[in-house]
């Protein structure tokens, strides 16, 4: 269990996945960010292998690397006029602090909690078992998930496709544009005259 390979595998994979995740953060170009993301996914898949969850690892590679990442690449390519740089918003400072806090909290919990952990070999783990549990105790979530995927699929299609009535923007938004308060300050709302108990 404490074989060198095991150590090596864990550490390298951990470094890869975390490093790749950091790469998503630092890379200047969105495409590169996606590449790093894929790398991170792969790293996590490796960690699954280390955890001897082969089946999940496979799914991970298939779905994340195969589907999601590609999907994102497509999305990026489909939005040519949008900025391609991987820039950050003014939220980065609070985000940094928050990241620190959250990570700290999680690490604290991970380290300080006395988990009922055991180190001996895990119960044999096979796709079949998972499949069985899917159609036994977890059949209901399974059904729901199926519906969910359908819903998402159809929804995504409904959103993405061009419908005849969408040609002109809906007047609602135009009206909103017209009434939209200026970008600076809250802007005097039309009711400032008498909105309430004070005058």
């Amino acid at each position, binding site marked *: 269990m404490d074989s060198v390979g095991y150590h090596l595998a864990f550490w390298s994979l951990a470094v890869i996945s975390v490093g790749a995740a950091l790469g998503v953060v630092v890379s200047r170009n969105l495409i590169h960010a996606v590449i790093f993301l894929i790398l991170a996914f792969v790293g996590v898949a490796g960690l699954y292998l280390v955890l001897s969850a082969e089946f999940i690892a496979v799914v991970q590679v298939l779905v*994340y690397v195969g589907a999601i990442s590609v999907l*994102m690449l497509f999305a990026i390519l489909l939005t040519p006029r949008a900025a391609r740089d991987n820039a950050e918003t003014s939220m980065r400072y609070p985000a940094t602090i928050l990241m620190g806090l959250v990570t700290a909290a999680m690490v604290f919990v991970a380290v300080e909690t006395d988990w009922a952990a055991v180190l001996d070999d895990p119960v044999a783990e096979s796709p079949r078992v998972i499949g069985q549990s899917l159609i036994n105790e977890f059949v209901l979530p399974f059904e729901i998930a199926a519906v969910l995927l359908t819903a*998402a699929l159809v929804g995504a299609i409904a959103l993405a496709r061009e419908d005849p009535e969408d040609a002109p923007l809906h007047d609602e938004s135009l009206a909103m544009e017209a009434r939209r308060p200026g970008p600076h300050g809250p802007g005097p709302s039309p009711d400032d005259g008498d909105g309430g108990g004070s005058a």
Partner: protein
Amino acid sequence: MTIGLEHFLVVGALIFGIGLYVALAKRNAIAVLMGVELMLNAVNLTLVAFGRFTVTDVALSTQVFVMFIIATAAAEVAVGLALAMVVYRNRDTISVDRINLMRW
């Protein structure tokens, strides 16, 4: 020392944090989605780790859980990207800084 549960949890925590940062700080909506995906991966990793290290049939339920998460994550991304497309069609941008017609 031996590689125990904590190690994987810490790795998960780190990835979660980084994902959070990406989600909170990146300007491009798609990048934000990437961040979310990272966070979900962290959760998955944590779950699988629990499945490996804490006894009983948790293994099953954890991995099943992960399955569901992966599935929904995919669905989420699909819908998200679709919405991003719509926004792009309307506004020629998917920068979260400019997606603020509505405020106050």
